[in-house]
């Protein structure tokens, strides 16, 4: 399942609803990405996430389907926010549930790596020096590539 929304999310409530009543689930891994308070030397006042409505949902759904095809997951969920956020705010939630922990951990890392290089979101940081679009990190491409071709 995937969702793109302006609103905040409750990670535990989402994870609980996702596996409720499914007693085949033994491991639930949850990733939450937060807005950090600094970019290098500069203090971040706010962060605005722009996205491409329509394509975002398609890309997240494709990534989710890919993870479901690669690992024996009982359930998975991606929730990604857009709009204006403050340091400490939640940006993204990825939940993976499986009978065994290896699948839940690996699928979760895969989803986070891939959504960072595929999902059409762009971060605009506001600091005392003004507004600045965040550059893509080569480390993210590298992290995504280790999973092989999509």
């Amino acid at each position, binding site marked *: 399942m995937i969702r793109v929304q302006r609103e905040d999310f409750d990670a535990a409530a989402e994870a609980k609803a996702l596996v409720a009543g499914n007693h085949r689930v033994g491991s639930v891994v949850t990733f939450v*990405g937060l807005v950090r308070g600094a970019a290098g030397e500069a203090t971040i006042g706010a962060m605005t*996430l*722009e*996205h*491409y409505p*329509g*394509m975002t949902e*398609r890309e997240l759904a494709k990534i989710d389907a890919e993870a479901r095809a690669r690992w024996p997951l009982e359930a998975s969920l991606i929730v*990604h926010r857009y709009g204006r956020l403050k340091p400490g705010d939640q*940006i*993204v939630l990825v939940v993976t549930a499986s009978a065994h922990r290896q699948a839940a951990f690996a699928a979760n890392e895969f989803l*986070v790596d891939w*959504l*960072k*290089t*595929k*999902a*059409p*979101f*762009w*971060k*605009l940081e506001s600091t005392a020096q003004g507004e600045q*679009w*965040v*550059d*893509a*990190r080569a480390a*993210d491409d590298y992290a995504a590539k280790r999973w092989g071709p999509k």
Partner: protein
Amino acid sequence: MKVLYFSWLKTRAGIGEETVTPPAGVASVGALLNWLATRSPGHAAALANRSVVRVAVNQEYATTNAPVGPNDEIALFPPVTGG
């Protein structure tokens, strides 16, 4: 043909969305980018460094030689930075 610009491509081009009618010979992503770059100094600045311009045709990632037509939605944006 609808063209969308995101992130700093939108800022540089000075426009977020426009409907364009390129000449008949402009039938691929690459040709479209070349033609769009001639529309204004802002467009030229936005498209100056093609290595950091990503393209989607009808909301799917596309490469330079992918075909484009009058009914397509083309989106231009830098490498993504979500998550």
